[in-house]
Protein backbone atom coordinates (compact mmCIF):
# COMPACT_ATOMS: atom_id res chain seq x y z
CA UNK A 1 0.00 0.00 0.00
CA UNK A 2 1.16 3.53 -0.72
CA UNK A 3 2.07 5.51 2.36
CA UNK A 4 3.04 8.83 0.81
CA UNK A 5 2.08 9.94 -2.65
CA UNK A 6 2.96 13.33 -4.08
CA UNK A 7 2.41 14.66 -7.55
CA UNK A 8 3.76 18.01 -8.66
CA UNK A 9 4.40 19.06 -5.07
CA UNK A 10 5.50 22.69 -5.13
CA UNK A 11 6.23 25.29 -2.51
CA UNK A 12 7.65 28.75 -2.90
CA UNK A 13 8.68 31.36 -0.36
CA UNK A 14 8.48 34.63 -2.23
CA UNK A 15 10.76 34.19 -5.22
CA UNK A 16 12.61 31.23 -3.68
CA UNK A 17 11.47 27.87 -4.93
CA UNK A 18 11.80 25.36 -2.08
CA UNK A 19 10.03 22.47 -3.79
CA UNK A 20 9.95 22.44 -7.55
CA UNK A 21 7.28 19.94 -8.51
CA UNK A 22 8.21 16.80 -6.64
CA UNK A 23 6.77 13.42 -7.58
CA UNK A 24 7.11 10.88 -4.86
CA UNK A 25 5.77 7.51 -3.96
CA UNK A 26 6.68 5.75 -0.76
CA UNK A 27 5.30 2.27 -0.13
CA UNK A 28 4.45 1.03 3.35
CA UNK A 29 7.13 -0.89 5.16
CA UNK A 30 10.07 1.02 3.73
CA UNK A 31 12.76 3.02 5.48
CA UNK A 32 13.48 5.89 3.16
CA UNK A 33 16.40 8.23 3.56
CA UNK A 34 15.84 11.68 2.08
CA UNK A 35 19.26 13.14 1.58
CA UNK A 36 20.30 16.50 0.23
CA UNK A 37 22.56 19.48 0.80
CA UNK A 38 21.50 22.35 3.05
CA UNK A 39 18.61 24.29 1.61
CA UNK A 40 17.71 21.53 -0.84
CA UNK A 41 14.09 21.43 0.34
CA UNK A 42 14.22 18.41 2.67
CA UNK A 43 12.60 20.10 5.62
CA UNK A 44 10.02 21.82 3.42
CA UNK A 45 9.10 18.44 1.95
CA UNK A 46 8.77 16.91 5.40
CA UNK A 47 6.74 19.90 6.63
CA UNK A 48 4.33 19.45 3.73
CA UNK A 49 4.01 15.73 4.50
CA UNK A 50 3.35 16.52 8.17
CA UNK A 51 0.75 19.20 7.53
CA UNK A 52 2.94 21.99 8.90
CA UNK A 53 2.93 23.99 5.70
CA UNK A 54 0.60 24.47 2.78
CA UNK A 55 1.67 23.59 -0.75
CA UNK A 56 0.66 23.48 -4.40
CA UNK A 57 0.11 20.18 -6.15
CA UNK A 58 -1.22 16.89 -4.89
CA UNK A 59 -0.19 15.18 -1.70
CA UNK A 60 -1.71 12.25 0.13
CA UNK A 61 -0.28 10.75 3.28
CA UNK A 62 -2.00 7.55 4.38
CA UNK A 63 -4.88 8.66 2.19
CA UNK A 64 -5.27 12.04 3.86
CA UNK A 65 -4.51 15.63 2.93
CA UNK A 66 -1.98 16.66 5.59
CA UNK A 67 -2.74 20.39 5.42
CA UNK A 68 -6.44 20.13 6.14
CA UNK A 69 -6.42 16.97 8.28
CA UNK A 70 -3.27 17.29 10.37
CA UNK A 71 -4.89 16.35 13.67
CA UNK A 72 -6.48 13.22 12.18
CA UNK A 73 -3.27 12.30 10.38
CA UNK A 74 -1.23 12.57 13.57
CA UNK A 75 -3.03 9.53 14.98
CA UNK A 76 -1.07 7.49 12.46
CA UNK A 77 2.02 9.62 12.00
CA UNK A 78 4.76 10.48 14.47
CA UNK A 79 7.60 12.86 13.99
CA UNK A 80 10.77 13.94 15.66
CA UNK A 81 11.90 17.13 14.03
CA UNK A 82 15.10 17.62 15.94
CA UNK A 83 16.18 17.13 19.51
CA UNK A 84 15.17 20.54 20.80
CA UNK A 85 11.39 20.57 20.50
CA UNK A 86 10.32 19.09 23.81
CA UNK A 87 9.32 22.07 25.98
CA UNK A 88 11.97 22.74 28.59
CA UNK A 89 9.56 23.37 31.45
CA UNK A 90 7.79 20.02 31.23
CA UNK A 91 8.45 17.12 33.59
CA UNK A 92 9.18 13.69 32.12
CA UNK A 93 6.10 12.26 33.85
CA UNK A 94 3.99 15.09 32.44
CA UNK A 95 5.04 14.26 28.89
CA UNK A 96 3.77 10.73 29.49
CA UNK A 97 0.53 12.01 31.04
CA UNK A 98 -0.10 14.41 28.22
CA UNK A 99 0.62 12.06 25.33
CA UNK A 100 -1.42 9.34 27.04
CA UNK A 101 -4.24 11.87 27.44
CA UNK A 102 -4.39 13.03 23.85
CA UNK A 103 -3.12 10.10 21.79
CA UNK A 104 -5.43 7.10 21.36
CA UNK A 105 -2.58 4.83 20.22
CA UNK A 106 -0.08 5.59 22.98
CA UNK A 107 1.01 2.70 25.18
CA UNK A 108 2.20 4.30 28.39
CA UNK A 109 3.65 1.09 29.87
CA UNK A 110 5.74 0.63 26.77
CA UNK A 111 7.14 4.15 27.00
CA UNK A 112 7.93 3.64 30.67
CA UNK A 113 9.69 0.40 29.74
CA UNK A 114 11.89 2.22 27.24
CA UNK A 115 12.64 4.97 29.74
CA UNK A 116 13.54 2.45 32.42
CA UNK A 117 16.47 1.37 30.26
CA UNK A 118 17.81 4.93 30.26
CA UNK A 119 18.86 7.24 33.06
CA UNK A 120 15.96 9.64 32.41
CA UNK A 121 14.19 10.00 35.77
CA UNK A 122 10.44 10.59 35.59
CA UNK A 123 10.42 13.48 38.09
CA UNK A 124 13.03 15.51 36.24
CA UNK A 125 12.29 18.41 33.98
CA UNK A 126 13.41 18.45 30.38
CA UNK A 127 15.65 21.45 31.06
CA UNK A 128 17.63 19.32 33.50
CA UNK A 129 18.29 16.60 30.93
CA UNK A 130 21.23 16.39 28.55
CA UNK A 131 20.65 16.59 24.83
CA UNK A 132 21.11 12.84 24.48
CA UNK A 133 18.62 12.14 27.27
CA UNK A 134 16.04 14.45 25.68
CA UNK A 135 16.42 12.49 22.45
CA UNK A 136 15.96 9.25 24.39
CA UNK A 137 12.81 10.63 25.99
CA UNK A 138 11.36 11.78 22.69
CA UNK A 139 12.19 8.47 21.05
CA UNK A 140 10.60 6.55 23.94
CA UNK A 141 7.41 8.60 23.53
CA UNK A 142 7.34 8.06 19.79
CA UNK A 143 8.16 4.35 19.88
CA UNK A 144 5.30 3.75 22.31
CA UNK A 145 2.85 5.12 19.74
CA UNK A 146 1.47 2.54 17.36
CA UNK A 147 1.89 4.69 14.27
CA UNK A 148 2.10 3.76 10.61
CA UNK A 149 4.54 6.46 9.53
CA UNK A 150 7.44 7.87 11.49
CA UNK A 151 9.16 10.98 10.17
CA UNK A 152 12.58 11.88 11.50
CA UNK A 153 14.12 15.21 10.53
CA UNK A 154 17.76 15.30 11.65
CA UNK A 155 16.81 13.30 14.75
CA UNK A 156 20.36 12.90 15.99
CA UNK A 157 21.60 16.43 15.36
CA UNK A 158 24.07 17.44 18.04
CA UNK A 159 24.19 14.04 19.73
CA UNK A 160 27.45 12.25 20.43
CA UNK A 161 28.27 9.12 18.51
CA UNK A 162 27.13 6.69 21.23
CA UNK A 163 23.67 8.22 21.44
CA UNK A 164 23.42 8.30 17.66
CA UNK A 165 24.27 4.63 17.35
CA UNK A 166 21.87 3.72 20.15
CA UNK A 167 19.12 5.82 18.59
CA UNK A 168 19.11 3.90 15.32
CA UNK A 169 19.68 0.57 17.05
CA UNK A 170 16.59 0.91 19.20
CA UNK A 171 14.62 2.20 16.26
CA UNK A 172 15.43 -0.94 14.29
CA UNK A 173 15.26 -3.45 17.11
CA UNK A 174 12.32 -2.19 19.13
CA UNK A 175 10.21 -0.32 16.61
CA UNK A 176 10.51 -1.20 12.97
CA UNK A 177 8.43 -4.23 12.08
CA UNK A 178 8.27 -4.06 8.26
CA UNK A 179 4.70 -2.76 8.38
CA UNK A 180 5.59 0.71 9.51
CA UNK A 181 7.19 3.27 7.26
CA UNK A 182 10.06 5.47 8.32
CA UNK A 183 11.15 8.60 6.51
CA UNK A 184 14.43 10.05 7.70
CA UNK A 185 16.62 12.97 6.74
CA UNK A 186 20.11 13.43 8.07
CA UNK A 187 23.53 14.74 7.18
CA UNK A 188 25.19 11.81 8.90
CA UNK A 189 24.57 9.56 5.93
CA UNK A 190 27.15 6.89 6.81
CA UNK A 191 25.32 6.08 10.01
CA UNK A 192 22.03 5.24 8.38
CA UNK A 193 23.42 3.47 5.33
CA UNK A 194 22.65 0.05 6.83
CA UNK A 195 19.31 1.14 8.22
CA UNK A 196 17.68 2.24 4.98
CA UNK A 197 15.76 0.22 2.44
CA UNK A 198 15.50 3.12 0.01
CA UNK A 199 17.37 6.30 -0.64
CA UNK A 200 16.39 9.51 -2.36
CA UNK A 201 18.52 12.54 -3.14
CA UNK A 202 16.94 15.96 -3.26
CA UNK A 203 18.66 19.02 -4.64
CA UNK A 204 17.31 22.51 -5.22
CA UNK A 205 13.72 21.41 -4.75
CA UNK A 206 13.89 18.42 -7.07
CA UNK A 207 14.36 14.73 -6.57
CA UNK A 208 17.52 13.97 -8.52
CA UNK A 209 18.07 10.34 -7.62
CA UNK A 210 16.07 7.50 -6.14
CA UNK A 211 16.94 3.89 -5.67
CA UNK A 212 16.33 0.99 -3.34
CA UNK A 213 19.34 -0.19 -1.39
CA UNK A 214 19.09 -3.57 -3.14
CA UNK A 215 19.03 -1.78 -6.47
CA UNK A 216 21.97 0.32 -5.42
CA UNK A 217 24.02 -2.77 -4.65
CA UNK A 218 23.25 -4.47 -7.94
CA UNK A 219 23.40 -1.42 -10.16
CA UNK A 220 26.34 0.70 -9.07
CA UNK A 221 30.00 -0.23 -8.97
CA UNK A 222 32.93 1.71 -7.68
CA UNK A 223 36.29 0.83 -9.17
CA UNK A 224 39.70 1.85 -7.88
CA UNK A 225 41.29 1.99 -11.28
CA UNK A 226 44.88 0.85 -11.82
CA UNK A 227 46.91 3.66 -13.43
CA UNK A 228 47.59 1.67 -16.61
CA UNK A 229 43.84 1.11 -17.12
CA UNK A 230 42.88 4.78 -16.77
CA UNK A 231 42.16 5.46 -20.43
CA UNK A 232 40.22 2.22 -20.83
CA UNK A 233 38.14 3.01 -17.75
CA UNK A 234 37.31 6.51 -18.92
CA UNK A 235 36.19 5.09 -22.25
CA UNK A 236 33.46 3.18 -20.39
CA UNK A 237 31.86 6.53 -19.40
CA UNK A 238 31.88 6.50 -15.59
CA UNK A 239 29.39 8.69 -13.73
CA UNK A 240 32.09 10.26 -11.69
CA UNK A 241 35.81 10.22 -11.13
CA UNK A 242 37.71 11.34 -8.06
CA UNK A 243 41.28 11.19 -6.83
CA UNK A 244 42.13 9.50 -3.56
CA UNK A 245 45.79 9.14 -2.56
CA UNK A 246 46.86 9.57 -6.14
CA UNK A 247 44.58 6.91 -7.49
CA UNK A 248 41.46 7.37 -9.54
CA UNK A 249 38.19 6.05 -8.18
CA UNK A 250 35.40 5.82 -10.73
CA UNK A 251 31.73 5.19 -10.28
CA UNK A 252 29.85 3.16 -12.86
CA UNK A 253 26.15 2.82 -13.41
CA UNK A 254 25.63 -0.61 -14.94
CA UNK A 255 22.65 0.73 -16.85
CA UNK A 256 24.48 3.51 -18.62
CA UNK A 257 27.78 1.74 -19.21
CA UNK A 258 28.05 -1.22 -21.54
CA UNK A 259 30.79 -2.75 -19.50
CA UNK A 260 30.10 -6.13 -17.90
CA UNK A 261 31.17 -7.12 -14.42
CA UNK A 262 34.31 -8.93 -15.64
CA UNK A 263 35.29 -5.94 -17.72
CA UNK A 264 35.12 -3.67 -14.66
CA UNK A 265 37.05 -6.21 -12.60
CA UNK A 266 39.86 -6.00 -15.13
CA UNK A 267 40.20 -2.27 -14.47
CA UNK A 268 40.95 -2.56 -10.76
CA UNK A 269 39.34 -3.29 -7.39
CA UNK A 270 35.55 -3.31 -7.63
CA UNK A 271 33.22 -2.65 -4.70
CA UNK A 272 29.70 -1.45 -4.01
CA UNK A 273 29.70 2.33 -3.48
CA UNK A 274 28.42 3.85 -0.27
CA UNK A 275 25.55 6.33 -0.27
CA UNK A 276 28.07 9.07 0.37
CA UNK A 277 30.01 8.14 -2.79
CA UNK A 278 26.83 8.22 -4.83
CA UNK A 279 25.71 11.44 -3.22
CA UNK A 280 28.99 13.11 -4.06
CA UNK A 281 28.79 11.79 -7.60
CA UNK A 282 25.19 12.86 -8.22
CA UNK A 283 24.96 16.12 -6.28
CA UNK A 284 28.60 17.07 -6.71
CA UNK A 285 28.36 16.97 -10.47
CA UNK A 286 25.19 19.05 -10.35
CA UNK A 287 26.88 21.58 -8.09
CA UNK A 288 29.91 21.78 -10.41
CA UNK A 289 27.53 22.30 -13.28
CA UNK A 290 25.74 25.06 -11.44
CA UNK A 291 28.98 26.84 -10.61
CA UNK A 292 30.24 26.58 -14.17
CA UNK A 293 26.97 27.59 -15.70
CA UNK A 294 26.71 31.17 -16.93
CA UNK A 295 24.52 33.29 -14.65
Amino acid at each position, binding site marked *: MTCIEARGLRKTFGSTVALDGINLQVQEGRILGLIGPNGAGKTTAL*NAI*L*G*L*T*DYEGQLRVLGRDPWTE*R*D*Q*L*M*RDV*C*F*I*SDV*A*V*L*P*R*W*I*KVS*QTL*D*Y*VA*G*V*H*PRFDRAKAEGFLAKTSVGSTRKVRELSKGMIAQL*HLALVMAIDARLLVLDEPTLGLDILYRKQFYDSLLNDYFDRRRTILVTTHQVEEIQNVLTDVMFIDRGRIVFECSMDGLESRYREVTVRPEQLAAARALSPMNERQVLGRSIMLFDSKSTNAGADQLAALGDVRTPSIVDLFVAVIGSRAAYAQGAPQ
Partner: protein
Amino acid sequence: MNPMSSRSSANDSQSNDSQVNDSQVVARGVAAPTRPFYWSVRRELWEYRSLYIAPLAVAALFLFGFMISTIHLPEKMRAVAMLSPMQQQELISEPYDFAAMLIMGVAFLVAIFYSLDALHGERRDRSILFWKSLPVSDFTAVLSKAGIPLVVLPLLAFTVTVALQWMMLLLSSLVLLGNGGSVATLWRNLPLIQMWSMMLFHLIAVHSLYYAPIYGWLLLVSAWARRAPFLWASLPLIAIAVVERIAFNTWHFATLLQSRVVGGDSDAGNLTAPGSNMAHSPTLLDLGQFLASPGLWIGLIVAAAFLFAAVRLRRSQGPI
Protein backbone atom coordinates in the same frame (compact mmCIF):
# COMPACT_ATOMS: atom_id res chain seq x y z
CA MET B 1 -31.57 -8.54 26.79
CA ASN B 2 -27.94 -9.17 27.47
CA PRO B 3 -26.54 -11.47 24.79
CA MET B 4 -23.94 -12.73 27.28
CA SER B 5 -26.59 -14.40 29.44
CA SER B 6 -27.28 -17.07 26.86
CA ARG B 7 -23.72 -18.38 27.16
CA SER B 8 -22.85 -21.39 29.26
CA SER B 9 -21.55 -20.92 32.79
CA ALA B 10 -18.13 -22.21 31.75
CA ASN B 11 -17.72 -19.06 29.70
CA ASP B 12 -18.89 -16.76 32.46
CA SER B 13 -15.59 -15.38 33.52
CA GLN B 14 -14.57 -14.91 29.95
CA SER B 15 -17.75 -13.10 29.01
CA ASN B 16 -17.40 -10.87 32.07
CA ASP B 17 -13.94 -9.95 30.88
CA SER B 18 -15.15 -9.09 27.45
CA GLN B 19 -18.00 -7.08 28.95
CA VAL B 20 -15.52 -5.07 30.96
CA ASN B 21 -13.43 -4.54 27.85
CA ASP B 22 -16.46 -3.52 25.86
CA SER B 23 -17.52 -0.95 28.41
CA GLN B 24 -13.99 0.42 28.58
CA VAL B 25 -13.89 0.74 24.83
CA VAL B 26 -17.26 2.48 24.85
CA ALA B 27 -16.21 4.82 27.64
CA ARG B 28 -13.05 5.67 25.75
CA GLY B 29 -15.01 6.22 22.57
CA VAL B 30 -17.41 8.60 24.27
CA ALA B 31 -14.74 10.50 26.16
CA ALA B 32 -12.37 10.73 23.22
CA PRO B 33 -13.45 14.11 21.78
CA THR B 34 -13.08 15.92 25.09
CA ARG B 35 -9.82 14.38 26.27
CA PRO B 36 -7.45 16.40 24.09
CA PHE B 37 -9.18 19.55 25.33
CA TYR B 38 -9.02 18.51 28.96
CA TRP B 39 -5.34 17.59 28.76
CA SER B 40 -4.52 20.74 26.81
CA VAL B 41 -5.99 22.85 29.60
CA ARG B 42 -4.01 20.88 32.19
CA ARG B 43 -0.92 21.38 30.08
CA GLU B 44 -1.41 25.15 30.29
CA LEU B 45 -1.59 24.94 34.08
CA TRP B 46 1.66 22.94 34.13
CA GLU B 47 3.41 25.49 32.00
CA TYR B 48 2.01 28.70 33.49
CA ARG B 49 2.17 28.05 37.20
CA SER B 50 1.84 31.78 37.83
CA LEU B 51 -1.84 31.37 36.89
CA TYR B 52 -2.54 30.07 40.37
CA ILE B 53 0.61 31.04 42.25
CA ALA B 54 0.06 34.78 41.70
CA PRO B 55 -3.50 34.96 43.11
CA LEU B 56 -2.53 32.64 45.97
CA ALA B 57 0.55 34.69 46.82
CA VAL B 58 -1.43 37.94 46.81
CA ALA B 59 -4.12 36.31 48.96
CA ALA B 60 -1.47 35.15 51.43
CA LEU B 61 0.05 38.64 51.59
CA PHE B 62 -3.37 40.20 52.06
CA LEU B 63 -4.17 37.77 54.86
CA PHE B 64 -0.88 38.63 56.54
CA GLY B 65 -1.71 42.35 56.43
CA PHE B 66 -5.23 41.68 57.63
CA MET B 67 -3.88 39.64 60.53
CA ILE B 68 -1.86 42.63 61.72
CA SER B 69 -4.89 44.89 61.35
CA THR B 70 -6.97 42.70 63.69
CA ILE B 71 -4.99 44.17 66.63
CA HIS B 72 -7.34 47.14 66.43
CA LEU B 73 -10.40 45.06 65.63
CA PRO B 74 -12.03 45.03 69.11
CA GLU B 75 -11.91 48.84 69.43
CA LYS B 76 -13.04 49.23 65.83
CA MET B 77 -16.07 47.04 66.54
CA ARG B 78 -16.94 49.14 69.61
CA ALA B 79 -16.78 52.30 67.48
CA VAL B 80 -18.83 50.65 64.73
CA ALA B 81 -21.59 49.84 67.20
CA MET B 82 -22.29 53.56 67.56
CA LEU B 83 -23.01 54.01 63.83
CA SER B 84 -26.16 53.55 61.78
CA PRO B 85 -26.80 50.07 60.29
CA MET B 86 -25.94 51.34 56.79
CA GLN B 87 -22.59 52.72 57.90
CA GLN B 88 -21.95 49.60 59.98
CA GLN B 89 -22.26 47.33 56.99
CA GLU B 90 -20.15 49.60 54.82
CA LEU B 91 -17.33 49.78 57.30
CA ILE B 92 -17.30 46.09 58.18
CA SER B 93 -17.56 44.73 54.65
CA GLU B 94 -14.99 47.18 53.27
CA PRO B 95 -11.86 44.98 53.70
CA TYR B 96 -13.81 42.02 52.29
CA ASP B 97 -14.77 43.95 49.18
CA PHE B 98 -11.21 45.16 48.87
CA ALA B 99 -9.92 41.56 49.07
CA ALA B 100 -12.29 40.48 46.30
CA MET B 101 -11.29 43.38 44.06
CA LEU B 102 -7.61 42.77 44.66
CA ILE B 103 -7.81 39.07 43.73
CA MET B 104 -9.92 39.82 40.67
CA GLY B 105 -7.48 42.53 39.63
CA VAL B 106 -4.56 40.15 39.95
CA ALA B 107 -6.43 37.51 37.97
CA PHE B 108 -7.06 40.07 35.21
CA LEU B 109 -3.40 41.03 35.11
CA VAL B 110 -2.32 37.39 35.01
CA ALA B 111 -4.86 36.74 32.25
CA ILE B 112 -3.42 39.56 30.13
CA PHE B 113 0.15 38.34 30.38
CA TYR B 114 -0.87 34.73 29.91
CA SER B 115 -2.84 35.54 26.74
CA LEU B 116 0.05 37.49 25.28
CA ASP B 117 2.44 34.59 25.76
CA ALA B 118 0.18 31.58 25.16
CA LEU B 119 0.64 31.28 21.39
CA HIS B 120 3.96 33.12 21.27
CA GLY B 121 5.92 31.10 23.81
CA GLU B 122 5.33 27.76 22.10
CA ARG B 123 6.74 29.16 18.86
CA ARG B 124 9.65 30.83 20.63
CA ASP B 125 10.83 27.64 22.32
CA ARG B 126 10.06 25.50 19.23
CA SER B 127 7.79 23.24 21.29
CA ILE B 128 4.99 23.95 18.81
CA LEU B 129 6.59 21.24 16.68
CA PHE B 130 6.07 18.77 19.50
CA TRP B 131 2.47 19.84 20.15
CA LYS B 132 1.72 19.65 16.45
CA SER B 133 3.12 16.13 16.25
CA LEU B 134 0.18 14.97 18.37
CA PRO B 135 -3.42 14.48 17.26
CA VAL B 136 -4.66 17.75 18.74
CA SER B 137 -6.22 20.20 16.29
CA ASP B 138 -5.25 23.86 16.21
CA PHE B 139 -8.84 24.62 17.12
CA THR B 140 -8.60 22.56 20.32
CA ALA B 141 -5.23 24.09 21.15
CA VAL B 142 -6.40 27.70 20.76
CA LEU B 143 -9.70 27.00 22.49
CA SER B 144 -7.94 25.46 25.48
CA LYS B 145 -5.69 28.51 25.70
CA ALA B 146 -8.69 30.84 25.46
CA GLY B 147 -10.34 28.78 28.18
CA ILE B 148 -7.71 29.86 30.70
CA PRO B 149 -8.63 33.58 30.88
CA LEU B 150 -12.30 32.97 30.04
CA VAL B 151 -13.11 30.15 32.45
CA VAL B 152 -10.23 28.89 34.57
CA LEU B 153 -8.98 32.21 35.93
CA PRO B 154 -12.43 33.59 36.88
CA LEU B 155 -13.23 30.34 38.70
CA LEU B 156 -9.82 30.37 40.34
CA ALA B 157 -10.28 34.01 41.42
CA PHE B 158 -13.67 33.11 42.86
CA THR B 159 -12.35 30.13 44.81
CA VAL B 160 -9.34 32.01 46.17
CA THR B 161 -11.49 35.00 47.18
CA VAL B 162 -14.07 32.84 48.93
CA ALA B 163 -11.32 31.01 50.81
CA LEU B 164 -9.60 34.29 51.69
CA GLN B 165 -12.80 35.94 52.93
CA TRP B 166 -13.61 32.87 55.00
CA MET B 167 -10.23 32.99 56.65
CA MET B 168 -10.58 36.72 57.29
CA LEU B 169 -13.92 36.15 58.95
CA LEU B 170 -12.60 33.22 60.96
CA LEU B 171 -9.59 35.23 62.09
CA SER B 172 -11.71 38.23 63.08
CA SER B 173 -14.14 36.03 64.98
CA LEU B 174 -11.31 34.35 66.90
CA VAL B 175 -9.79 37.72 67.82
CA LEU B 176 -13.15 39.11 68.96
CA LEU B 177 -14.01 36.00 70.97
CA GLY B 178 -10.52 35.97 72.47
CA ASN B 179 -11.13 39.52 73.70
CA GLY B 180 -14.42 38.50 75.25
CA GLY B 181 -16.41 40.42 72.62
CA SER B 182 -19.32 39.36 70.50
CA VAL B 183 -19.21 38.30 66.86
CA ALA B 184 -22.90 39.08 66.26
CA THR B 185 -22.32 42.56 64.76
CA LEU B 186 -19.58 41.24 62.52
CA TRP B 187 -21.55 38.31 61.13
CA ARG B 188 -24.76 40.27 60.80
CA ASN B 189 -23.09 42.88 58.64
CA LEU B 190 -21.40 40.46 56.27
CA PRO B 191 -23.92 39.16 53.74
CA LEU B 192 -21.41 36.58 52.50
CA ILE B 193 -23.74 34.55 50.31
CA GLN B 194 -24.92 37.72 48.66
CA MET B 195 -21.38 38.97 48.20
CA TRP B 196 -20.26 35.70 46.70
CA SER B 197 -23.14 35.38 44.27
CA MET B 198 -22.55 38.98 43.24
CA MET B 199 -18.88 38.28 42.73
CA LEU B 200 -19.53 35.14 40.72
CA PHE B 201 -21.94 37.06 38.52
CA HIS B 202 -19.43 39.86 38.10
CA LEU B 203 -16.68 37.39 37.18
CA ILE B 204 -18.80 35.63 34.58
CA ALA B 205 -20.37 38.77 33.17
CA VAL B 206 -17.30 40.99 33.09
CA HIS B 207 -14.16 38.89 33.35
CA SER B 208 -15.43 36.17 31.05
CA LEU B 209 -17.98 37.57 28.66
CA TYR B 210 -17.29 41.29 28.57
CA TYR B 211 -13.50 40.93 28.50
CA ALA B 212 -13.61 38.12 25.91
CA PRO B 213 -12.62 40.38 22.98
CA ILE B 214 -9.64 41.67 24.98
CA TYR B 215 -8.32 38.14 25.49
CA GLY B 216 -9.18 37.27 21.90
CA TRP B 217 -7.13 40.21 20.66
CA LEU B 218 -4.18 39.35 22.88
CA LEU B 219 -4.24 35.71 21.78
CA LEU B 220 -4.41 36.79 18.15
CA VAL B 221 -1.39 39.08 18.54
CA SER B 222 0.42 36.33 20.40
CA ALA B 223 -0.21 33.94 17.49
CA TRP B 224 0.88 36.52 14.94
CA ALA B 225 3.77 38.57 16.35
CA ARG B 226 7.28 37.27 15.80
CA ARG B 227 8.59 39.32 18.70
CA ALA B 228 7.42 41.87 21.29
CA PRO B 229 3.75 40.78 21.41
CA PHE B 230 3.04 43.33 24.14
CA LEU B 231 4.03 46.21 21.86
CA TRP B 232 2.12 44.76 18.92
CA ALA B 233 -0.95 44.40 21.11
CA SER B 234 -0.87 47.94 22.48
CA LEU B 235 0.80 50.28 19.97
CA PRO B 236 -1.62 49.76 17.05
CA LEU B 237 -4.54 50.57 19.34
CA ILE B 238 -2.83 53.74 20.54
CA ALA B 239 -1.99 54.61 16.94
CA ILE B 240 -5.62 54.28 15.85
CA ALA B 241 -6.77 56.50 18.70
CA VAL B 242 -4.13 59.12 17.93
CA VAL B 243 -4.87 59.16 14.20
CA GLU B 244 -8.58 59.49 14.92
CA ARG B 245 -7.92 62.37 17.29
CA ILE B 246 -5.73 64.20 14.76
CA ALA B 247 -7.91 63.51 11.73
CA PHE B 248 -11.38 64.00 13.17
CA ASN B 249 -10.71 65.57 16.56
CA THR B 250 -12.71 62.80 18.27
CA TRP B 251 -11.96 60.10 20.84
CA HIS B 252 -14.50 57.44 19.79
CA PHE B 253 -12.02 54.59 19.55
CA ALA B 254 -10.30 55.46 22.82
CA THR B 255 -13.68 55.75 24.54
CA LEU B 256 -14.66 52.38 23.12
CA LEU B 257 -11.52 50.76 24.52
CA GLN B 258 -11.91 52.50 27.85
CA SER B 259 -15.52 51.42 28.24
CA ARG B 260 -14.49 47.87 27.41
CA VAL B 261 -11.86 47.77 30.13
CA VAL B 262 -13.70 49.62 32.91
CA GLY B 263 -17.00 47.91 32.18
CA GLY B 264 -18.74 50.80 30.43
CA ASP B 265 -21.71 52.82 31.57
CA SER B 266 -23.95 52.59 28.54
CA ASP B 267 -23.75 48.91 27.69
CA ALA B 268 -23.71 46.88 30.81
CA GLY B 269 -24.59 49.45 33.40
CA ASN B 270 -22.97 49.93 36.80
CA LEU B 271 -23.39 46.27 37.34
CA THR B 272 -20.37 45.35 35.27
CA ALA B 273 -18.06 48.05 36.54
CA PRO B 274 -15.33 46.47 38.66
CA GLY B 275 -15.85 49.13 41.32
CA SER B 276 -19.55 48.46 41.77
CA ASN B 277 -20.71 47.63 45.25
CA MET B 278 -20.26 43.95 45.96
CA ALA B 279 -22.95 43.92 48.58
CA HIS B 280 -25.52 44.80 45.96
CA SER B 281 -26.92 41.50 44.80
CA PRO B 282 -27.78 40.89 41.15
CA THR B 283 -31.42 41.02 40.27
CA LEU B 284 -33.18 39.57 37.28
CA LEU B 285 -33.55 43.10 35.96
CA ASP B 286 -29.77 43.61 36.00
CA LEU B 287 -29.27 40.28 34.32
CA GLY B 288 -31.79 41.06 31.60
CA GLN B 289 -30.29 44.48 31.07
CA PHE B 290 -26.84 42.93 30.76
CA LEU B 291 -27.91 40.21 28.34
CA ALA B 292 -29.81 42.74 26.23
CA SER B 293 -26.87 45.11 25.84
CA PRO B 294 -25.55 45.10 22.27
CA GLY B 295 -22.02 45.75 23.55
CA LEU B 296 -21.91 42.29 25.08
CA TRP B 297 -22.91 40.51 21.90
CA ILE B 298 -20.78 42.62 19.57
CA GLY B 299 -17.85 41.92 21.89
CA LEU B 300 -18.48 38.18 21.81
CA ILE B 301 -18.68 38.17 18.01
CA VAL B 302 -15.44 40.12 17.79
CA ALA B 303 -13.81 37.72 20.26
CA ALA B 304 -14.93 34.74 18.17
CA ALA B 305 -13.49 36.35 15.04
CA PHE B 306 -10.15 37.01 16.79
CA LEU B 307 -9.99 33.41 18.02
CA PHE B 308 -10.86 32.05 14.59
CA ALA B 309 -8.04 34.11 13.10
CA ALA B 310 -5.70 32.82 15.81
CA VAL B 311 -6.59 29.22 14.88
CA ARG B 312 -5.81 29.91 11.22
CA LEU B 313 -2.53 31.55 12.14
CA ARG B 314 -1.44 28.72 14.40
CA ARG B 315 -2.02 26.25 11.60
CA SER B 316 0.44 27.93 9.27
CA GLN B 317 2.97 29.23 11.79
CA GLY B 318 6.09 27.37 12.75
CA PRO B 319 8.80 28.07 15.29
CA ILE B 320 10.35 31.56 15.34
